[in-house]
């Protein structure tokens, strides 16, 4: 299966610090990918490099087989919805749709009219006076009407209320089901991604912590609790992602492909949230910066 986004040793250094480093990823086609991590983890940096808004400091990135923003043809295949969904405040909704039609050869006018009608947006209304949810929907409409092969959304729902958030994600999933684009969306809230994503990338402290299919990740991670034990005493095939200890008890989040036989453990399955939080807090403690990619 070909990769929609392929990076190798990708890094971006800002004036003071690295925004992203040593990022090697291959995101397969046809997935809805959740990019999750705490604020400042490098999500926006990665997505901006994928959309061609930022040039990498080192390493390579190719999106749909080409350098991002390599030319009009490559740009036409990637839809991008930026964080806080910026729109031209003084221009009307209709002006934005006109802008999209002018600048994109593959513009789907029927799609925009259908979406604007369904959303109940007034074409004459200034974009600056739209609510956050409406503005996000307008930005999504612009990105969808390009009919992209890959849709990148940077924290599209971060500033929306729960209802607008659900509406937005539902609209996104409907469009994806209808037109079959690959989607990469970032969020610092796992709950948003849980509903829609089938592939997960966890970024923390400027590095990729884990990437893989959600079902495979959930099947290979377990929470073990039992009498207090040193992590070194665990079998070789069990990699400790996160650990916490009390005087008598130890809890480990481990990753293993083998079944766990030790009867002294209580083994529980993990949720996506457990997994993400485990990797994030693991990243905080972990000085060796493991990089794991599951295909």
């Amino acid at each position, binding site marked *: 299966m070909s990769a929609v986004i392929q990076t190798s040793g990708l890094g971006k250094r800002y004036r003071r610090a690295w925004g992203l480093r040593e990022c090697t990823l291959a995101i397969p086609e046809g997935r809805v990918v959740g990019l999750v991590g705490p604020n400042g983890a490098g999500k926006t940096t990665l997505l901006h490099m994928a*959309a*061609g*808004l930022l040039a990498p400091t080192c390493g390579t990135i190719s999106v749909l087989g080409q350098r991002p*923003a390599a*030319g*009009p*043809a490559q*740009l*036409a295949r*990637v*839809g*991008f919805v*930026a*964080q*806080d969904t*910026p*729109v*031209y*405040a*003084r*221009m009307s909704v209709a*002006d934005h749709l*006109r*802008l*999209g039609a*002018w*600048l*994109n*050869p*593959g513009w789907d006018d029927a799609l925009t009219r259908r979406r604007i009608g369904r959303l109940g947006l007034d074409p004459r209304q200034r974009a600056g006076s739209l609510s956050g949810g409406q503005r996000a929907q307008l*930005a999504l409409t*612009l*990105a969808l009407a*390009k009919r992209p092969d890959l849709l990148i959304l940077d924290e599209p729902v971060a500033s929306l209320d729960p209802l607008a958030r659900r509406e937005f994600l539902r609209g996104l999933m409907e469009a994806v089901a209808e037109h079959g684009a690959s989607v990469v969306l970032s969020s610092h809230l796992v709950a948003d991604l849980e509903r829609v994503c089938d592939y997960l990338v966890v970024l923390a402290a400027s590095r990729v912590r884990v990437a893989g299919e959600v079902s495979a990740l959930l099947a290979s991670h377990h929470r073990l609790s039992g009498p207090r034990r040193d992590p070194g005493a665990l079998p070789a095939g069990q990699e400790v992602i996160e650990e916490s200890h009390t005087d008598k008890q130890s809890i480990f989040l481990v990753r293993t492909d083998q079944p766990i036989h030790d009867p002294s453990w209580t083994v529980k399955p993990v949720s996506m949230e457990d997994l993400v939080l485990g990797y994030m807090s693991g990243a905080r403690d972990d000085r060796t910066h493991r990089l794991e990619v599951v295909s």
Partner: protein
Amino acid sequence: MIRLSVLQFRAQAATAAVALAVFAVILAATSPHLFGLYDSSGIAACQAHGNCLPLATSFVNKLGGFYTVFYFIGIGFLLLVPAIIGTFWAAPLLTREFEAGTFQLAWTQSVTRTRWLAAKLGVGALAAVATAGLFSLLLTWWSGPIDTAAPFDKGNSITFLRLGFVLFPTRGITPLGYAAFAFALGVTAGVLIRRTVPAMAATLATFLSIQIAWPIWVRPTSSHPPTSSSRSPPRTSLTLTWRSVPAAAPSSCPTCPA
């Protein structure tokens, strides 16, 4: 992309159109009286045969206070037009996109950044030069009679040197150059500073300083043609001589058939 740049330029274009219209209406309404006075003064004919000084003095005296004042207002306005263009059009042209984050929207349409920038700068620069040009055309036409008559009377309060700091930048094609420069200055300040209000302030301050400094220190060096006296020979001379170089033997050339 050009259409989008034009669409984004609507508000500024409307402002400029209103200002131009007001300016044109005032000038057009007052021109019959001004040109009538000039025609009846006989200045146009006197230049061939006689002494124009009394005619010019009487023409300037007959001009009402309005015409004298408006002559100065026109000059002041044309000195300001490039500054306004640089400050209010050029400086925010790119900074507004950076501040509002809308560059992320513009740069992810199916148009390269190069074309986006070219269209924005092209439309903006063209509008800047065209606006300044129209203002200058109107004012140069309206001020023509006064510009012609005033210099005959050197003691007059409205007599200015054609290449001085008052008339030169406000007549003919000079405002076009000033507008183009102010536009470039505003865009550059915007790109370097990245924030709208500081960029506008920097543009205005820099442009006004250059507008003042240039006629004082730089233009005098180029406004007078260099002259030399024929009586004293030049102190240094440069002699250029042609030396004829013998043509190489045409051995490598094919001989022409006889």
